[in-house]
């Protein structure tokens, strides 16, 4: 109950007009940077960080974290309306969100995305509030074998639970893993596949690839089919919002499952991106009609968004308690904390109670205010669909190019983005799924490093992946998921054998 008292104290710190105004400003700025593909949360926060140097730490972090919430909300908007994920974790939202927009249900999809974001964050904040000390000790249990097991789990769940043909998923994933190897190899300190080019030194940036694969290729496809963006003027009203909310209880299992996955992967440092994919895949696996996913099912929006936001929020916990940022944006916030003389670490919770609880209280308030703000502005964003394609397409291409350039200030990245646009177009034509490719590109080098560090540590002994209960159960689960379709069939036929026998008996 001590936590509750401290939280109330945090609210008392926040409830001043000045803080509330800063909060609104932060949210609007955040939504704005979230909507521009490629600019996204990390860059937005980085650009605005110097603005806060003259503020006191609490006001500054409230404003910055509200930019963060805003960017999280904003990322969903472009995913749904244009099939361009603003942040890595919005990728899974495009799977069903974009088809919904094409069917003229953009408003419904957006409402679903915002609502589930809100629910996911709320669950994570509750968790942070009451479990902070316990969770930081859980995160410490993760060494290289545990990290690798989590990445393996993500990869395996993709192959085992994916809807696409298995060989195509594996091809796509392998290509992603190959490209993830470009650049400096941390373990050996050597350059790989750079062919003497200074541009390839830094490797292939994930966001550049995603903007090309999803955004540019979508424009190419649409041009070929001579269609306008297929969304129709969506009738958005309080009625739509309420009807989505009324259906919410039906999806409580999905929401709860995704929140759980999100929180779990969020506090596992670096697991935030994996969360949205896993949330989506599991929702599909446990659905009665998995085939309807990917064709505009509202549950396909609920699942990844809830998981993404639960993990995005809980990613702040390892940052505060251990100084390990769980996401790119969290890393920039970490830099900010240090400027204000607050060193993240186990003692932050003891020495700077005002600040920590002010921040946690701002997560509650920021999310409530954010939800109201985005819902009231949904009509503005959805109306973009009514603009003719010929006018919108060049704007999207330019915005994609700016986004790709801004990530590393490199002209080369724009060419790379266009290249990926063509690759994405070809992949879509020959039916190779893009998601495993992007997943492998994001997690590939981390998984590789974790694997090789485990091997160095164990002297090359594979038993290290079953060396304790935690890593053993994750690894076993990963392998079970990989062979899930086979197991599913085997159990199915076993069941059929069993039933007639029972009847006979």
């Amino acid at each position, binding site marked *: 109950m001590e936590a509750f008292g401290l939280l109330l104290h945090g609210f008392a710190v926040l409830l001043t007009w000045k803080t509330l105004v800063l909060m609104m400003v932060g949210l609007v700025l955040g939504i704005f940077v979230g909507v521009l593909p490629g600019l996204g949360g990390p860059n937005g926060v980085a650009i605005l960080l110097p603005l806060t140097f003259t503020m006191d730490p609490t006001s500054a972090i409230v404003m910055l974290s509200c930019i963060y919430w805003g960017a999280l909300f904003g990322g969903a908007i472009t995913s749904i309306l244009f099939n361009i994920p603003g942040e890595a974790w919005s990728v899974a939202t495009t799977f069903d969100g974009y088809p919904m927009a094409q069917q003229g249900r953009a408003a419904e999809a957006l409402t679903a995305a915002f609502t589930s974001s809100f629910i996911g964050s709320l669950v994570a904040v509750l968790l942070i509030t009451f479990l902070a000390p316990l969770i930081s000790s859980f995160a410490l249990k993760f060494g290289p074998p545990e990290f690798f097991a989590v990445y393996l789990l993500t990869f395996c769940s993709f192959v085992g639970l994916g809807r696409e043909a298995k060989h195509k998923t594996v091809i796509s994933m392998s290509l992603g893993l190959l490209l993830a190897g470009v650049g400096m190899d941390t373990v050996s*300190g050597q*350059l790989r596949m750079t062919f003497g080019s*200074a541009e390839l*030194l830094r490797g292939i940036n994930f966001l550049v690839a995603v903007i090309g694969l999803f955004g540019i290729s979508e424009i190419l496809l649409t041009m070929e089919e001579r269609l306008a963006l297929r969304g129709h003027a969506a009738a958005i009203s309080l009625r739509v919002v309420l009807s989505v909310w009324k259906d919410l209880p039906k999806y409580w299992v999905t929401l709860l499952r995704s929140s759980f996955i999100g929180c779990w992967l969020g506090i596992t440092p670096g697991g935030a991106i994996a969360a949205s994919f896993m949330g989506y895949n599991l929702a599909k696996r446990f659905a009665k009609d998995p085939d309807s996913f990917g064709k505009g099912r509202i549950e396909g929006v609920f699942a990844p968004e809830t998981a993404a936001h639960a993990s995005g929020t809980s990613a702040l916990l390892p940052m505060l308690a251990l100084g390990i*940022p769980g996401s790119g944006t969290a890393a920039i916030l970490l830099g900010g904390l240090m400027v204000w003389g607050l060193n*993240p*670490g186990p003692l932050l919770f003891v020495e700077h109670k005002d600040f920590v609880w002010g921040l946690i209280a701002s997560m509650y308030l920021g999310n409530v205010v954010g939800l109201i703000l985005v819902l009231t502005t949904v009509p503005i964003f959805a109306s973009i669909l009514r603009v003719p394609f010929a006018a919108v397409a060049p704007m999207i291409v330019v915005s994609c190019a700016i986004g790709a350039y801004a990530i590393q200030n490199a002209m080369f990245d724009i060419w790379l983005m266009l290249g990926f646009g063509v690759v994405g177009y070809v992949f879509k034509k020959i039916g190779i799924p893009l998601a495993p490719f992007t997943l492998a590109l994001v997690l590939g080098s981390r998984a590789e490093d974790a694997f090789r560090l485990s091997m*160095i540590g164990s002297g090359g002994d594979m038993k290290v992946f079953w060396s304790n209960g935690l890593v053993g159960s994750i690894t076993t689960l990963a392998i079970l998921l990989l062979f899930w379709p086979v197991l599913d069939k085997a159990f199915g036929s076993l069941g059929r054998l069993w039933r007639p026998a029972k009847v006979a008996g």
Partner: protein
Amino acid sequence: MRNIMKSAAALTAMLASVPAVAGWEPTKPVEIVVAAGAGGASDQMARMMQAAIQKNNLMKQPMVVSLKGGASGAEALMYMKSSEGDPNKVLIAYSLIYMLPLSAKIPFNWRELTPVSVVALDQFVLWDNASGPKTVKEFIEAAKAASSPFKMGGTGSKREDHVLTVFVEQKTGAKFSYLPYKSGGEAATQLVGSHTESNVNNPSENLEVWRAGQVRALCVFDKERISYTTKVTETQSWHDIPTCKEEGLDVQYLMLRALFLPGKVTAEQQAFYVDLFQKVTQTAEYKDYMEKQALKPIFLTGKDMLQFLEEDDTLNKSLMTEAGFVAK
């Protein structure tokens, strides 16, 4: 009368010198280039300088931090190399300027950049888990007796941390498995979680876990103890950590933190930044930062800096060669 003459002369000299100092000023925002990831020691230094310059109005143009930590920092080096003649970019350099070209054959030479000043020297400390051996001697004995080699965490491969590990091995005969992590922060938490037995982090990288009593500082790799005597943990100050030499482990290494401009900038532009960073080193923000991070104060510029860099380059080259990390 003579006094008046003297002060008048001094006054004239001062007036005359003012335009010379203010000869050039940046006309657009100055980019401070960090050759490491967000939250690392270089990034923290960049943010401190950004705040010190902004709060004390040391420059009219704003300063922006630009993170170029790709390819273990090689990205930043190539970026500076290709920005020849651009006086609006300042690199925060550390020993990677000597080591990366050797280990990964990056086509880069620090002599192609314009040196501004050396602003600090960073220490290295041998740390183990708070539940591990209590002295260097016990630690080395435990490492020798262990059935599988002790795991030593560090940042990157074939860099400062890795070189230090090799030298500890050479001096003691104990064997270590070196685990290269992406950052010092990661190496710190992995030590706390007992996934490694030890690391050779900079003081700043292990500061918070040390204060929380989760790790123990065994010795500092320098000729003399760290000068700061304010208590950092409940019982210890930085000064209380013995040197490794005192503990019978004769290994020393210090890492520079220096500022560079791209090549081919004018002498006036160089002078502006020398002056700017000299002012930065006099701010309260800088002094506070140095003590908090246990950095060794130093300010070198001009000829002194060049001499320092040449000597440091030779030293690093010989260490890298001896450790067998120079790519063929």
